[in-house]
């Protein structure tokens, strides 16, 4: 046999095995990291048809989230405001600004503005906004610091693991119901103290409000 295969081929099986292991690990590692929403979703920032800035409206001007997203406490769906909502202010403010041309046109003709969807869970997930925001979960937990974004970007992965992290320990996130839309609110500026207070009050809220934070399939999948 040595006529056919040179000596170095004796080491080949081992090399192949090691090589396969390395490549296999790299593939698994790659998929693990790159094929999850943490990588594929976070940071997604499409350009919207109207350059609406949350940083200006929610951050600088301090308009409450619910002024525009008015159905968030009533429906599973947090509505994108109609163009006429924009015009409530903009028929006074910046009323001839060219950046608002599309809004003015939409409000007068009724033709919708085609906003690009940023946050989306799959169709088989029945996420409900109303039950979260009325029971102490702030917008910031899923959407990030929207009040600092000029163009909205996808801040959190919104994967099933992300949901379950919170559902397994709601006390770490739950806050007083009047602070839901105050995205910068903290128990304390001191991070250590804040964590301590959050844990203490969170557990109290979970107990008092009978927060179920369901982890069974039927909570989200129907």
């Amino acid at each position, binding site marked *: 046999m040595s006529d056919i295969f040179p000596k170095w081929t004796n080491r080949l099986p081992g090399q192949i095995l090691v090589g396969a292991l390395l490549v296999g690990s790299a593939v698994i590692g790659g998929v693990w990291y790159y094929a999850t929403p943490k990588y594929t979703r976070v940071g997604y920032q499409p350009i919207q048809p109207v350059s609406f800035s949350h940083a200006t409206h929610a951050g600088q001007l301090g308009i409450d989230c619910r002024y525009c997203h008015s159905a968030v406490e009533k*429906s599973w769906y947090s*509505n994108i405001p109609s163009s006429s909502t924009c015009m409530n202010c903009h028929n006074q403010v910046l009323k001839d600004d060219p950046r608002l041309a599309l809004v003015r046109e939409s409000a007068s003709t009724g033709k919708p503005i085609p906003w690009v969807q940023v946050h989306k869970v799959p169709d088989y997930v029945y996420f409900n906004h109303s039950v979260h925001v009325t029971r102490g979960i702030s917008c910031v937990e899923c959407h990030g610091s929207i009040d600092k974004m000029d163009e909205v970007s996808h801040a959190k992965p919104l994967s099933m693991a992300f949901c379950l992290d919170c559902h397994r320990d709601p006390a770490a996130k739950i806050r007083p119901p009047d602070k839901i839309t105050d995205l910068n609110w903290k128990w304390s500026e001191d991070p250590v103290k804040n964590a301590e207070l959050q844990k203490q009050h969170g557990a109290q809220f979970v107990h008092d*409000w009978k927060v179920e934070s369901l982890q069974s399939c*039927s909570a989200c999948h*129907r």
Partner: protein
Amino acid sequence: MKTIPPPCPEPESGPQYWRSLEQLSDSPQFRQWVEREFPHGAGEMSDPHSRRHFMRIMAASFLLAGAGGMGSGCRRPEEKILPFGKAPENYIHGVPQYFATSRPSRGTAFPLVARSNDGRPTKVEGNAQFPGQAGGTDVYTQASILDLYDPDRSLKVTQAGNTRKREAGIDFLAELARKGQSSLGAGIAFLSDRSSSPSRHRLQSEILAKWPAARWFEHEAVDFEVHREAARAAFGPDPSGATGMRPVVSPVYRLEKASRIVTLDADILGSEEESARLIQGYAHGRRLEKPTDPLSRLYAVESLMTLTGGNADHRLRVVPSLVPAIAARLAQEVLRVTGALGEAVSPLSGVAGPASAHEKWIVECAKDLAAHKGSSLVVAGYRQPLAVHLMAHAINAALGAVGTTLELRPLMAPASGSLPELAALLNRGQVDTLVILNDNPVYSAPADLDWASTQRKAKTVVRLGFYQDETGLAADWHFPATHYLESWSDGRTADGTLVPVQPLIAPLFDGVMELEFLARLAGLPVTSAYEIVRTTFKAQSLAGDPEQAWKKFLHDGYLEGSAPKPVAASFKVSALVSSLASLTPPAPASAEKLEVVFFRDSRVDDGRQNNNGWLQELPDPVTKMVWENVVLLSQKTADDLKLQIVDREDNNLRVPWVRVILAGRNVEGPAWIQPGMADHTVGLALGYGRGKAGRVGQNTGYNAYKIRPAGSLHRAAGAQVQFLENLHPLSTTQNHWAMEGRPIVREANLEQFKERPDFAKGMNMHEPPGLRGKDGQLEPLYQNPLDIPGPDGKSPRDRATHAWGMSIDLNTCVGCSACMIACQGENNIPIVGKNQVSRNREMHWIRLDRYYAGEVADPQMILQPMLCQHCESAPCENVCPVNATVHDEEGLNVMAYNRCVGTRYCSNNCPYKVRRFNYVDYNRRPLHLLAGPFYTTPLLHSTDGEWDLIRWWKNPDRGIRPDDEWELLKLVKNPDVTVRMRGVMEKCTFCVQRIEQAKIAQKVKAGPQGNIEVPDGTIKTACEQACPSGAIVFGNMKDPNSRVSKLKAQQRDYTVLEFLATKPRITYLAKIRNPNPAMPDYAKSPGSFKEWEGMGNKLGHHGAAHGTPGGYAADKKGAH
């Protein structure tokens, strides 16, 4: 501790309950067939395409799909959100809205509440606020929502088959109006369906006043007007000579007040008008908590096997022509015992003669009725002639039923001619223009009128119809009618209450509302249907602000106090005597001279809902046949005709193809032996074999109208049945999932119940040894997931706020099947087609099991809704390799569709056989493929002129469905329920979407507080909400005061297959029959009970050592 799997107890001798003739005959082939989990070939491809061919095509498909997938699968689709430019008031996206409306049907309208999801109606329910109605609907109403989205409905105005613009049609109507005005209506005839709408009646009168020479005719293929006509003849005023309106009397049968009910060929629990209301009343009398509670008794005289007969305590099986004689003899006897209406006795004796064979039955029945004077009721059916109705009313009058169990509501109906009168007019050439509203006479007119050619004798035929059907095709101008959920109209319920017909959506196509059509055609000044209805409403003299009254009317869905006051009238013997003269004595039926019964089908009505897939696939509650009608015969008739009925070949049920000949006309169909049919009677269901239906209804069943005589619409004598050689494959759900003779349905007579109130719990099979642990409790085979403690030491059972459970009362369930259609609509359940049903692949999450007990000739019928039992120790969960079916802490056995890989192990291990598998992508299959083949390749076909592969690539959701189907049928889907795809197992979820919505609503309401428990009665599952009898109750078992807890605490409560210790969350309340000991057919115990005893079983005692305790709290104790 390890438990040994319990062996199934073998029946010792013969079957206990039988569900089909095959099972009764217990043939070896049948045994082999039922013992297989899925019958031979159910999981296999048996198409012309071979397995290898399939693989070849699939491989090629995958290759191409893979290449395309590189581009399509990996890209992130960019989706747009399109908010309103200007938001409408009171609309929140994602929150369904509810509107009160009503469904007009023949001479009545049924009050409804319709759900609108983001602007599209998706579900209708009975209006529970309507006085005297607890909600609940019938199958026709439940399924009517699908008609709205039928891609085969009439879309455009057509002239001689060519599409015209709507405006052109409107111009044509205006021209007609001008012509009519100049001739004052001469030569114009209207043919309409029956209607209860005051607005339509008003327009009719206005038109006839304007055009005095015009004539109006009404036709219904299945007509319930005989009820109103008979009540008028018996109690009401004489028809006045004035033209226009005629007085009628609407008899409102108050079954809830009746303790003794006799039906004379009246299927009050099935095919009679407004059966949902009648079932509700009947169920009221059958509901009982304790043995001492009053229980009504039902006597049924009938020739077909119907739900009414199946639920009756005493059933008399007679040929239809004998019913008048029985009515006469019964009337005689009741009049004699009560001493009322003496002058009617002797005229009756001329008719009563042939009833002598059933003398004792009738006499004892009459005695029982007379003993319950004031609380008994006799109802005659629509198939019986006026004389039988009058005899029934004579009995009612003698029994003092008028004003108690029988309310007489005087109404006005338009005076109209009949179809034969119109035919005569046409034949004389006196009709120039024929206007047909809704009715489909070319299909449904009696055969001897030869309507298709008769109709052509009019110069112009104008038609308004929902479908471009037989009549639409034969008309010169066809106008598409709007669905009732697209229309403004009004109507009157059976008791005369005014109800609105309110649209939930603008007409989807070029539809014209009936009122608008009439107004334009007659050139009336107001043509808006809305304005017409409002004008009619104004005529109601109402106190207060008319605008507020109108708003309240639309909000409530009825006008309070608008029903006419019931009249207390005396019976007119003269009317009875004169009607008796019209009866001819029956000739005895024989195998050579059979009697024929034409009846309203339990699914497609008289044919109007023939193109409705939900109804086509709904098994008939008695025959369990789908997708067609059969020629019903009794066993004896079949024997006399030497018909060998059942043959099974290649897993297909095959029956003889027969020809039914009546008066020189014939129709061919498949023969079927129906246990309990009257001998020498042929039952022919109307509504199938349409000449022009849609993609769903085409080629289903035979057309019984082809031999229907004009003189006698519902029964005829002298028919022959000829056997033709070929065998016809039938699809039935009857033999599927037979449960091999265990006490699945438990029942007893009232006397037995009084003796042993806990009989249902003691009615067990011989229990195999080794099922019980040391404490004497049944040991579950699988660990109960609700008892496994979590990290906090608390079990899910203790942690959960609710424990969902259901109780089904078999005493009030009559088997109407409304639950099945409601479930189908609520849960996006697809239809699969006849071919797939024959492979046991129907998808209904809830089914109605129908068992028989006793003789084949005249058996007792037992019905049981069967759905996922939500076992706590669920066998299905333990065998799932991917954890796709698991428990939630509130006791729901949930399916995570995305995890399911389709092993079907769960279905294999389910003792109740309630899991359904998507063998094919039913939701994406075009309707024309319902007939097969069920695998097609996207490589070789194109749809709408586009290669299927391209289509699929463009929109994988739509798949290969044609655009019209896809765009319409997706609108009927409930957005809160996932639409399942191929390869996924599914089953009843307890309407988890409704549960979660209610829980969320309660939590939102609670806010930062702890009152998150959903109040009892807030959640109604779809089946519960549709159930007219209130047999299904869902609720929280953790609350001892909830309705479901109280029902489960009753002594009749039992668990199906209890010895398996699966701890189902659904329990049943045993059925109690109430036979009369004096009757000749009295038996001490029900047939099924006797058969159970016959197997050597004895009533055991339940308690600590035996059986499952009733309530949830007790259950919990037992499990620890």
